[in-house]
């Protein structure tokens, strides 16, 4: 199949997952032309990464995934080993900027754009050493040098900078924020991330499938189910395995429970950050009860390591189903009551309304996905029907109703979270009471040389995992992509014009992952 009358021939990735179209660009121009056509059609840049293919006789390879109406188009471009360069895509898709810089830091394949600042590499290893090259060696003995970062400077009378981080005031992940302000008003906000870089992609190279699952469940611990499922889906697509309907329903229950847990926690924090400590106590109580039931039924408070390639390592009997749906019945009215209190609380609404706004045009421009994109009115949800395709099982049969809000501010993100809790409770109840019979885990036999992409709508947004399997039946390259890659720049647009004390509130309304994009 061809897309947008471009010459590239796409074939559909086999399997039951979300539609993924695989294609190859012959050169940089063809890639750029396709990107321009995708941009024109309102597509998103979903992910971009590189791989070293020199062991199998090639050079390097660039992987770009575009989110389109037809599904996801996964385009690869072969790059020569001696001169691995490709055209800068950040003019079309601003989201490409940091992904391209990270790709250079990790694999040493470069783009021809102007922003060549390192992203994931701080001072821990030298600029001419690339951790994902197969001949890089262990590289543990570099000296850890302090590193500076070229923040964009704001000039003018009275303008000054407030540096924050990497260690922040609360119990939160590290990152550095640079506010350029006049008085209290923020003129510009720029983040520098990478502090959580743990070298997971390097660790994944050569790992077996089950070690891979362990690591993927810990890319971002608050989204462990989304990552584990996306990874499993990628492996299953590559190896031609179909998880049973029962396994898929159980996965969906786990994923929706994760969504509810995170929304409950964030809604509590969002009350607290606007000085309503009552909200924190109430929602944290509900969240605690929620994760205790997760521990009871699935053996882990965050349900880590339950989703594995082939299916799930969990099952529910009739008694467990009753516990699940009873809890949904109990928590639904409590959340509704709190929703009314939040809505009618003048102090909260004063802080929420018109604070930290982004609009749909910006959300599209920045390739956003997930809850924050839906809070600008975009109808983007991997669990819902799109114009040109039905969502993968088990979603299609459930008729998931996307929750949107056009305002794009903190109030909208709060409203979407409330709406999504209600919808997830409905889904969990329906999934649990109509569990299909059957086995919960199928055997997965590695297919050497195969590759696959898995895409799951996590609670923040689209979690995407690209996998390729080596000739030795182990993982050759795994790239986990967090929606926060695209969302962090949106935060930079949401903060200016508001005042510095609004930042914690705006930040929490997005609650982006640091570690998910730091890898």
């Amino acid at each position: 199949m061809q897309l947008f009358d471009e010459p590239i021939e796409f074939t559909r990735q086999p399997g039951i997952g979300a539609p993924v179209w695989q294609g190859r660009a012959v050169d940089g121009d063809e890639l750029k032309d396709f990107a321009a056509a995708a941009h024109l059609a309102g597509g998103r840049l979903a992910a971009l990464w590189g791989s070293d293919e020199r062991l199998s006789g090639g050079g390097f390879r660039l992987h770009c995934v575009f989110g389109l109406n037809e599904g996801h188009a996964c385009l690869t471009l072969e790059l020569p080993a001696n001169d691995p360069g490709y055209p800068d895509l950040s003019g079309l898709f601003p989201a490409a900027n940091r992904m391209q810089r990270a790709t250079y830091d990790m694999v040493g394949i470069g783009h021809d754009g102007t922003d060549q600042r390192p992203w994931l590499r701080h001072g821990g290893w030298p600029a001419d050493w690339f951790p994902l090259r197969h001949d890089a060696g262990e590289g543990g003995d570099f000296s850890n040098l302090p590193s500076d970062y070229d923040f964009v400077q704001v000039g003018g009378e009275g303008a000054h900078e407030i540096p924050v981080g990497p260690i922040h005031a609360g119990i939160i992940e590290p990152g550095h924020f640079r506010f350029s302000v006049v008085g209290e008003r923020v003129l510009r906000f720029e983040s520098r991330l990478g502090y959580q870089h743990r070298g997971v992609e390097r660790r994944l190279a050569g790992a077996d499938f089950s070690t891979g699952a362990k690591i993927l469940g810990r890319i971002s611990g608050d989204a462990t189910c989304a990552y584990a499922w996306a990874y499993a889906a990628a492996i299953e697509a590559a190896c031609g395995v179909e998880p049973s309907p029962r396994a898929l329903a159980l996965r969906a229950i786990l994923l929706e429970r994760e969504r509810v847990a995170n929304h409950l926690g964030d809604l509590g924090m969002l009350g607290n950050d606007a000085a309503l400590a009552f909200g924190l106590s109430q929602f944290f109580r509900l969240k605690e009860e929620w994760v205790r039931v997760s521990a009871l039924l699935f053996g882990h408070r965050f349900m880590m390591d339950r989703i594995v390639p082939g299916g799930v390592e969990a099952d529910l009997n009739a008694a467990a189903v009753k516990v699940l749906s009873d809890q949904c019945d109990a928590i639904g009215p409590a959340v509704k009551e709190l929703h009314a209190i939040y809505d009618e609380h003048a102090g909260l609404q004063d802080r929420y309304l018109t604070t930290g706004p982004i609009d749909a045009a910006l959300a599209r421009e920045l390739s956003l996905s997930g809850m924050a994109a839906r809070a600008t009115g975009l109808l983007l949800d991997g669990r819902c029907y799109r114009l040109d395709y039905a969502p993968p099982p088990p979603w299609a049969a459930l008729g998931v109703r996307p929750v949107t809000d056009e305002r794009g501010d903190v109030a909208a993100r709060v409203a979407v979270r409330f709406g999504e809790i209600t919808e997830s409770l409905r889904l969990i109840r329906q999934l649990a009471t109509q569990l299909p019979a059957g086995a919960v885990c199928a055997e997965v036999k590695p297919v050497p040389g195969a590759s696959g992409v898995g895409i799951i709508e996590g609670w923040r947004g689209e979690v995407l995992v690209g996998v390729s399997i080596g000739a030795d039946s182990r993982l050759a390259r795994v790239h986990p992509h967090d929606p926060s890659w695209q969302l962090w720049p949106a935060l930079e647009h949401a903060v200016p014009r508001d005042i510095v004390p609004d930042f914690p509130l705006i930040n929490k309304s997005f609650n982006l992952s640091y570690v998910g994009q730091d890898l």
Partner: protein
Amino acid sequence: MIPLLKRILKTGIVTEPVAEGDARREVDRLQDEVLKILGRALTIREVDAGSCNACELEIHALNNPYYNLEGCGIKFVASPRHADMLLVTGPVTKNMENALKIAYDCTPDPKLVVAVGDCGCGCGEVGALFGPNYATCGAVANVIPVDVRIPGCPPTPVALMQGILAAVRYDRAHPAVSPERS
């Protein structure tokens, strides 16, 4: 305001010592012990030096009404200069190594350091997955002296409370300098 007050009344005090399984009893016992052993406030600066964020979620949970850590006078503070204890999750990344050392140096003596999670303790299968490698230093103890370790992936809030308590006990028993801090 009225619905809000109603909600508070309806919720009641969930921290109440009503027996509700072992977890609840354990929490009550721990809270008594914290008050008895400490008899004063303890301030903690939490430092995420490279965790997957799930350890942080459990540390957050310590302040929910079930565990009510702040009710025992144990408080999380923003600055290491105000802290008696550093609660550190890891593996310590190379990119956080320096910041963690600075936070340690800024914490006034005598200080306690507690490493949290299999990553921070460098133990178990998970500890081995994330370091040491080119990007991480591995366990917290590879970077700063550690007094007490709380393993788990992530450790539960009860385990965290027990660990914090153990650190306090440890401090009482070794008022001078702990052996690991030579």
